[in-house]
């Protein structure tokens, strides 16, 4: 244990689709310390994306029971924008297109919101342009992405790279990457993974939600967890991912209770 307080502590988390919808998380427990990379794997419908949404504060999911502590503080009591300015970042599985919103302005707005919340100096247009220039090589992005509208007309790979660029700008303590590898070709996967690795440090942690072992070849996890039916059913080190690749998830699931939930 490097720090006294874990970066993220999820205790007996129960969550369902808002307004009395389907129950998805059923007593999930997870502790993430600074310096660790946790991979969350699991079959479709096991609750992986729901967990990401709960942590980011998406209004479509409602927490019915349990606690989430971020740096020892109640994360669920914070508004989504407060979570972001406190250092929690969600890289979207399907990044949203914002036609009419300039990418650079958007990044600057986000950066300044975080600076302001932390009582740090904000950057003007020129200052931010300089700052941004240093971040672009991380995701091998060209300048012209910045002049376009946020994700509008971007390819799948460009959208994911733009997510990591936002991560680079916001420099979060806890990053949740929700299937960031999906829809990426091998080159793009390498670029994205390299970007993430460069952003990782001993005072940060990453929650890596993924279907495939391949991403873990690039971003090495400290722990691998299998999520099924809204709970973590087994945990292990990197070798667990290889075992899953070989055997699938079936051997971990009680068949009679297998559920298909698409969220």
């Amino acid at each position, binding site marked *: 244990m490097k720090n006294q307080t874990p970066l993220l502590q999820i205790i007996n988390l129960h969550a369902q689709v808002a307004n009395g919808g389907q129950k998805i998380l059923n007593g999930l427990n997870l502790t993430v310390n600074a310096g660790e990379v946790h991979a969350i794997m699991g079959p479709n419908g096991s609750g992986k994306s729901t967990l990401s949404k709960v942590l*980011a*504060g*998406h*209004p479509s999911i409602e927490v019915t029971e349990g606690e989430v502590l971020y740096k020892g503080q109640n994360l669920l009591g914070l*508004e*989504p*924008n407060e*979570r*972001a*300015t406190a250092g929690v970042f*969600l890289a*979207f599985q399907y*990044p*949203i297109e*914002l*036609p*009419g*919103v300039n990418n650079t302005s*958007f990044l600057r*707005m*986000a950066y300044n*919101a*975080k600076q302001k*919340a932390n009582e740090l100096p904000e950057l003007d247009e020129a200052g931010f342009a300089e700052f941004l220039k240093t971040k672009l090589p991380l995701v091998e992005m060209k300048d012209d992405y910045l002049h376009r*509208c946020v994700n509008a007309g971007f390819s799948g790979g460009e959208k994911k790279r733009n997510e990591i660029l*936002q991560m680079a700008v*916001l420099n979060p303590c806890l990053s949740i990457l929700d299937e960031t590898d999906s829809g990426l070709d091998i080159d793009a996967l390498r670029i994205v993974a390299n970007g993430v690795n460069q952003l990782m440090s001993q005072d940060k942690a990453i929650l890596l939600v993924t279907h495939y072992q391949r991403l873990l070849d690039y971003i090495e996890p400290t722990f691998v967890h299998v999520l099924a039916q809204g709970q973590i059913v087994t945990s292990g080190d990197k070798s667990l991912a290889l075992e899953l690749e070989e055997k699938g998830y079936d051997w971990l699931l009680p068949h009679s209770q297998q559920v298909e939930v698409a969220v």
Partner: protein
Amino acid sequence: MTMTLTPPAPETTPAYEPSSLDVASLLGVNLTTELSPFEACLDPMLQAIIANKNADFSALSLLKSHSAERFMALGLPNRKHQEAWKFIDLKPLVSKPLPAVQSKLEPCRLPYRLEKALKLPVTLTVCNGAFPKDASPKAAAPWMLFSQLEASVQTAFQQLLTEKTTQESDPFCVLGQALAEDIWTLDLPANTTLEKPLVVYVNQSQTSMAFPQWAVLLAENASATVVVSCSSDAQLQAYIQACATVELAKGATLNWVYLVNHTSENIVQLLNTRATVHEKAYFNLFAVNASNGALLRHSMEVRLVGQEANATLNGITLATGKTSVHNHVRLTHDAENCQSSQIFKAVVGDEAKSEFDGSIFVTTNGQQTDAKQLSKNMLLSNKAKAFARPWLNIDADDVKCSHGTTVGQLDEQQLFYLVSRGISPDEARDVLTLAFVVDLLSQLENVAGVEALKAECLALFQEKLAR
């Protein structure tokens, strides 16, 4: 060609008959025997104008009396029977009497901000409906400034305006012309290009009625850009009836930008734009409205009468509070190979109301027409209302016409995306609202000299959303 003005034979002044039925239905009270306060206030003014016709045969007096008679023939609109007025509540106008136009020129707060944004001086200031009397055309380039009707080459304008008045079906349009102190004209000779936009500033600083009128004649291949900015001081009450009559000869180009931004909630502004576009001429209208006024109606009637004539009509409305904004378009394709495009966007918040009523008429002459019309609306609150009524009326058989409308709200997923990056929900809403109109605002960048208006409008919208 010149037209001689012959004094008309003396005739009896027609008695003014109040359109009592309409007013009663508008006010919801029984007024069958009484004039509405608005009409009671107009009545003596119109009578005086008609009486003045025989005493003074100036071009303006004749036109005014002709318009007054036309108004009396048309009467106030009836919401029940006239489709165009169905969604317009004239109560803020007809229920309160207002003082007549002030001929005295009051010192106006100058639109420093607009001047600064455009880096251009204001060409013409209209204050409380009164035009400056001393703004004489410069000798070197007489067309460089607007001039008064009496001072300009009268015949062409008088002929044009008289003809238009006879055909006009909008009572308020002719009323404005009847009560106007003067009509300001821009007469651009052939092959002349105005390098810089003309900036007209219409300011209201006291409670009154105001009737600014413009007539613009561009000869062959002439081109000009006019920016009209309308604003008013806080809380005052006013009725502004403005009209721009435009005639574009072969190959002429006119860019006309309206920027309406009244601070006061008690302003009724009825705006009329009438344009006739001849062969290969281009009329480009851009109307931005961020007014707080009670009612704003912009009636646009454009006729494409020569081959390959082209018209673009764009409008952006940001309506909040209890504002009611109406954009009415009648665009006629009356010649072959003409093009037209209309895009109207409205953002409606609070208890505001926005209406788009647009018709494209293609006559049997309008073969090979290419006409597009789009109305997009965004509602920001549960009490906001948007009405969209796109019409097509096609009598030719070889045309390309499209029309469409959308009404929506801010996208929850987009909002969450912004918020998940640390941006506050309020700021996120503003960002997405501005994003909705920004692509249309970008079209201002295509008009030389007014590029800076895009940023100015965005700033204006931002301020208004923040209020």
